[in-house]
């Protein structure tokens, strides 16, 4: 379980973070302004490619992507 969160966290830090950001599992990503709605599309694509899943647009809401923890929950729904 934690492996999943760690992979997502590592990707988020590498792709969307900067040197001053201290991103954790619960850092607000969308509402916090770290990942905007356009960049969310590339994050969704990453998850789909990495975990060989398809996340319907209806499930890819800003709320569902608002933290690494929430994203991991979303991925688990589609990989279960």
């Amino acid at each position, binding site marked *: 379980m934690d492996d999943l969160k760690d992979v997502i966290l590592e990707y988020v830090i590498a792709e969307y973070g900067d*040197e001053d950001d201290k991103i954790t599992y619960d850092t*607000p990503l969308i509402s*916090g*302004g770290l990942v905007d*709605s356009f960049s969310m599309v*590339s994050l969704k*694509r990453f998850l789909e*490619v990495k975990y060989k899943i398809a996340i319907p647009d209806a499930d890819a809401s*800003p*709320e569902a992507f608002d933290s690494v923890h929430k994203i991991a929950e979303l991925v688990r729904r589609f990989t279960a």
Partner: protein
Amino acid sequence: MSNIGSFDERVRTFDWSIAERELEYTAGSGINIGWYCADRICAKGGAQKLALLWENAQGEEKRFTYDDVRVYSNAVGAFLRRLGVERGDRVCLFMDKVPELYIGAVGVLKIGAIAQPLFSAFGDESLHVRLENAGTSVIVTQRKHASKVRKILDRLPQLRHVVIVDHDGARALKEREVAFRMEAERVETLDLCPTTAESPSLLHYTSGTTGMPKGVQHVHYSLVSQYLTAKWVLDLTEKDIYWCTADPGWVTGTSYGIIAPWSLGVTQVVLDAGFSAEAWYRLIEKYRVTVWYSAPTAIRSLMKAGDELVKQFDLSSLRHLISVGEPLNAEAVVWSERVFGLAFHDSYWQTETGSIVISNYPGLPIKAGSMGKPFPGVTAGLLDVQTFEPITAPGVVGVIALRPDWPAMMRGYWQNEATYQAKFKNGWYMPGDRARLDREGYFWFVGRDDDVINTAGHLVSPFEVESALLEHPAVAESAVVSKPDPINMEVVKAFVALKPGFSPSDELELDIMNFIRKKLSPLAMPQAIEYVASLPKTRSGKIMRRLLHAKEWGEDLGDTSTIEND
């Protein structure tokens, strides 16, 4: 009773001198937007009135009175002068929606320098192109964005200083960097630059179909338009709590997020955070926002969040809603009327026009889905697409045309006279959009007249994205078009032909997306990539972007006789 009163009466009796009188400006005298946005309000007894109620995603809050704006903008101006900034120098403001951006713009204008706001999500290449073109001498930014500046510093010899507004001493400053704390000192006096009506004020960059972004030049006299349109379209009064959701990296955020509200002495709210329907409603409830200027993409996102969420908040303070950036669909107007009890009023303008030119007005019946009518004092019409002769018959589609004689109209493109001149035909300025008129004189948006992509109200140049795509090691050639999107109206789609040795894959698609996102901006990132063996071209070798566009939009392919046969 609204500020505008009878629209028809205003049209009949209109003269821009109405605004000049209210601003106590007489032709030929000095005019400085920075002074109007702070010092004049203080001089008229508004020093202790709140100018800015600011908060960020972390819940940090700040409040600034008009006297705060006055002294801190003085501090910005004095500091820039100490760095050697002179009248006419370009000073880039590259920040999130922090107070330093808003008050910094006022400070830059006070010393007669040209403020060049840029969207803080721009990647290093987008930043480089715009700083190089403008010959920017100072950039004011935050620690979090300084790394993008460092990447391009060696290619910008004219950039003398990089001002960091939140330097905490944890890391050493790098080459050309200098720290500045706006609130460290209240600077009571500053020699105001004696700017006049035609003195340059702002330089906003916008995208076109071909060529690199263009710097749109505005002057201090634009205030006259921005002041009056805010008063009549936004219906702002001194009692209002106003929220403009636009980022000052784009023109709405400066014209109606800095200049208009502050020249009217209005209290405004700024939320420096990403989008969240809940956070937006909470902000309106908390600050008792009365006038709300937003964008169709945001409104559609709120619609998606559902009606039930709206009911959880007390939004009864709202009294007037306005929208800008892209056409406001009729469903959004009907929805806002149902859930807020107020219809969003669509307004139309662009970077070049500097202020609202066509709009819906308080008191004038709204036709849901219509752009509304020309602002009093603005002459707008439609021209035939081929002959550029005026169209008067209702229902006929033509290109929107404006007589370029209102105060905020751009004065040129930065060092690009040919492109500027090409925007005019027979004395009309053409913003690049198509519309039709109905029998009552309402304009109805039809679409862009060029290939520029309007995504969430921001223009993206297909040429700029295609150029950047070619720098990706796997891309041999590309064509970029818009793709319909239910929230953002349009998003970027790229057709890509790969170089030998590269194969299409999902991993490569993601890599290309991220490459563009970081190099240009998240807005410019293709949200879809289609691999093709080759692109459709004319016999002379020009990529036929319109065929790909037609395919995406399910339109007729039109004349394909010039297509190259493989």
